[in-house]
């Protein structure tokens, strides 16, 4: 796949994830949509490596981003479980503690 096409696919993935984050009501679904966005970003990093842009270690950086994203997912699921134990639901409407 040419790098330009990979960048186009990564853009679509980022916007799909953004759409999911805005539309979905379950906290777990929002978390998974966030990871669709991260997948698009990692694909963009790998595509920049293929283009020969400055910073050829972008693939290594993409691996580190993947690891950090997974650790963030584990913490996010722990937060969702704690939220569920407090509120009895994972609906995002009930997460209004910091609402203005």
């Amino acid at each position: 796949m040419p790098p330009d096409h990979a960048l186009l696919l990564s853009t679509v993935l980022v916007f799909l994830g953004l759409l999911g984050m805005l539309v979905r009501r379950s906290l777990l679904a929002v978390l998974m949509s966030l990871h669709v966005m991260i997948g698009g970003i990692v694909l963009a990093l790998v595509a920049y490596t293929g283009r020969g842009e400055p910073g050829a270690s972008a693939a290594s950086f993409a691996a580190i981003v993947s690891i950090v994203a997974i650790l963030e997912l584990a913490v996010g699921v722990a937060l969702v479980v704690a939220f569920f134990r407090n509120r009895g639901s994972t609906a995002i409407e009930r997460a209004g503690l910091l609402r203005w």
Partner: protein
Amino acid sequence: MSAWASYVLGAAALLGALGVVGARDAARGAAALWIMAASLSGVFALSGAALTAAVYLFAYSGASVLLLLAALALERSPAGPGWRGNPRAWFAGAVASFAGLGLAAVVFRNASDGPINSLLAPAAGAQGNPLFALAACSCLAAAACIAVVAISAPPDSSPAPSGSENS
């Protein structure tokens, strides 16, 4: 040939992302995220980023198992008033998890010049290989985080109160 394969894998990743965004519940979303991660990992491998592909596939295989277990613990069954996490569903989730992780391991084991072999071969001779240390530390950190989540899971699967929202 590899160009067509990367286009097919990219289309599969796009379908997986659509599945994540449009899934009815989190269990189906976790499965779609698994498909998207595996397809993107294939795109990475065909683009020459073997280490990124290996890390991405293994990390998201574990993450999808975590999300699947969270969906089993936190979601109500779409077919009835009870929770999704009945004994039959836990068994199906365990089978799906072992099948997915085992499939990922078999794929990488059979790839003779694959990323895992190139990752582990230098580590056999050099104890202080930073790449191997990074992979080992990330696996340990992910296992610790998964253990924290497992400890903080709800203790039982009692029936849901009527009138509350699903998922």
